[in-house]
């Protein structure tokens, strides 16, 4: 089955949005969630997911704390901070603007 790469620059947006929707998640859940919701179209590479999470930790958009999974295993859960929420809004409006622009270009007669 064909899967599309995540468009460049939207990985943060996807992670932020996923976390905003469901409170806290660990890395595997974030990846699965994005894949599921996109109906298997978007696949997050682990190789970029974890470094991206680290960068978001540095920026202070998310915090991480250790918790236990349903299967009673230790996992690191990520949670959005206030700064993260603000960043999400910024990324959303940016995304909308770009998509809107692209749409207008495509649909122009």
């Amino acid at each position, binding site marked *: 089955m064909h899967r599309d790469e995540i468009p460049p620059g939207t990985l943060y947006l996807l992670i932020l949005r996923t976390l905003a929707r469901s409170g806290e998640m660990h*890395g*595997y859940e974030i990846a699965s969630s994005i894949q599921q919701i996109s109906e298997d179209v978007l696949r997050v590479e*682990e190789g970029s997911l974890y*470094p991206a999470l680290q960068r978001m930790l*540095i920026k202070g958009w998310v915090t991480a704390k250790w918790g236990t999974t349903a299967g009673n295993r*230790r*996992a690191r859960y990520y949670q959005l901070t206030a700064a993260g929420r603000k960043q999400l809004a910024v990324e959303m409006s940016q995304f909308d603007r770009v998509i809107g622009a692209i749409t207008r270009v495509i649909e122009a007669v």
Partner: protein
Amino acid sequence: MDWLRELARRLSMLMHRRQFDADLEEEVRLHLELRQEERLESGMTANEARAAARRRFGNATYLKEESRIAWGWEWFENLAQDVHHGARMLRKSPGFTAVAILTLALGIGANTAIFSVINGVLLSPLPYKNPKQLVVIKENDSLPNVMDIQRQTRAFSQGGGINVEKMDYIGATEPVQVRVGLIDEGFLETLGVQPMLGRIISSGEDVQGGPRLAMVSNHFWQNYLGSDPHAAGNTIQLGGNSYTVIGVMPASFALPAEHADVFVSLMVRDPGAGAERDLHFMHTYWRLKAGVTLAQAQADMAAIDRRLAEQYPAEEKERKSQLVPLHEWLVGDVRAALLVLFGAVGLVLLIACANFASLLMMRAVAERQELVIRAALGAGRGRLVRKTLTQSLLLSVFGGAAGLLFAKWGTSLLLALRPEELARLSGIHMDTRVLLFVLVISVLTGIVFGMAPAWIAARSDVAEALKKSGRSTTASTMGHNIRKILVTSELAVALVLLVGAGLLIKGFSRLRSMNPGFNSANVMTMYLQLPTTRYGEIPKQTQFRRELLTRLNSLPGVQVAMVTDIPLGGNYVGHRFVIDGRSPVAVGGEPKVQTLSVMGDYFHVMQIPLRVGRDFTPLDREEQPLVAVVNEEMVREFLPHENPIGVRIRWAGDTGPPQWMTVIGVVADVKHSGLNQPTDPAVYTPFSQSDEAWRRFMTLAIRARDAAPGLVEEVKKQIWSLDSQIPVSDVHAMDELIAVSLAQQRFNMLLLGLFAVLALILAAVGIYGAMAYAVNQRTHEIGIRTALGAQRRDVLRLVMRDGAKIVLFGIASGIAGALALTRLMASLLFEVKPTDPATFAGVAILLALVALAACYIPARRAMRVDPMVALRYE
């Protein structure tokens, strides 16, 4: 503020690196396991599932590294790793480490010590308000002139003069002489000093007949006024008069050049000074108005000089006032010496660095195998260079730290040795600028001299090196060539320093062997001044002098005479004079001579040889025909073509009937102002025939058969038995005065000599190291040669030939360098040419001998190589 919080997060990550790694590890593991379970659920076998999960996950190590790099500490971790590795390597070879650090510490320490002196003397601003505005007029001036300049100047905002005179102070346990600065009202204000207690004199008080007021130094206040916070208002007895203390100076205040403990108004102390235009004895300081340049001030001063010369042709006809910035005036003499020393010590550092680099290269060749393996395993070239550089930086920073200790010790040594000229600027200490200097040269040394070995490391050809498994690769031959060049330059630089030191030593020994014109052995001197109140008239002075000499000469084993100013004591009075029968010279244009009054058998006591005519006798006294003895220089300059005996001279500017003095004798020249100074023409006259009542001072010259320990006390007792209130000061052995006059030259010679010895040792160590290493590398070859029948002599020749080539090249280029550089020190040399061939030759031979001896040690080891052992070597 966001960046601050971000930095805090990054730092916290750095602190908890281990935790970070463990967390990431666990996170990744969980991810893999969960993925594996997902695959199992979709019906794969356990093995397939694990493989699929791993495949999907990609390179976990890469991911972890990417995550770490995100935090931006990669450089730090590499550095920490390099430092850690470097430190371990250094610990593993303590001998190498100690030699490298010691070498650098010597070089950096010597440089830092000299730099801290330069920093204190040349670079630090003077401790006065806006010191850049301060200038001095080189020539001394009289009070009326100073006042005229103050009125007429358009370039100076303030100005004032000082003359330091010793006055007796009654109030201490015994009568003491204190140095009193006779000043005008502008003086202290010009320097911008604020009194710590009380106030300074105001313009209304600095007038003829003004109140007797005194400002005292902090030192005087502590010693004689008991640090009394209410000292202002106290009365002190100074030179027979009562003065009211009105102010105390802060402890930080010191005069730029002079030393004084009390300041009083010249006009008040000496009401006549306001009219004595031709007595030029005040040293004057001036403050430039903001925005006025030195050239503008000099032009303005020239205009004032012209006006004064027109107005007072008799006194001021030849006026010429030269302005010099205060700082330049103060450090002028020592600047050249300090810069030469700094240059010399810089050369020592260069040699130390060459040794350091040479050691590092040896090291790099030894570690090449390890580097090659690292490179083969994929270490980047940059990383390898960084690793080598880190090691050399580590060494150089340790060397710098150790050098700082050397410098601290060296600076105190310098301070102990320092000549008078440096003593007056005592701001020599370690400050941030000195520390910065050490840091910069340490780091530069580490980088610049670590570069060559690092380069060798980077150039190592992995494949070739692995194939050859050790011996003599391109890298090591290249290393060897670079080391040869380094050692050659070391020898060259050492030669330059040795030549410099040799020239100074030669000049100094010339100076020491200079005949001062008198015999200083077993002569003590002391200075007395008669108070005006009781000895205002000449007959009273003469009576005291005569009586004192009678009493002192009756002491067993001593001969005593007196003179106004003792040779090498730093003072003399100059008078203009006229020769009888010569066509008259314009007033104010007469020639000047050193003028000395004597009493007792002065020439005999000082053993100044009489050349022609006769000595003074007790009959040459008051009421008798006036007589004079002149020195040979006086005859050479003014009476070359006639018999000087019988010539009549008189002082210029005398009023009343001419007072002709007849020359009765000629004595040998005396080096009055310093052994390296030319002799001035001089006229000696009897104290008893003087008509200058202000000459109330005298220096006793006491020749004792042997240096009796109680002599000084005995003489003082005799003086005080005549008058218990006469202060005695400046008690010195004549030998001591000679030593003081040589101090600056001695200082230069000792330091440059020390640096040259340091350079010689370092260069010898350098060539020894290079030769020893070369022999070590060639053990195999030497073994083969010996096995094939080479004699020990042949082996010796083989090694020594290499060494001799280096030594010859080094010395040849050193001589060329020295010829170019010693010109710079010409001003420090006394009667020695900077290209003195004997010094050059002697030094070259010395260096050659030392260097060849250093080569001989490894050569002898080469001779003893056992072919069997050598062939099995490695």
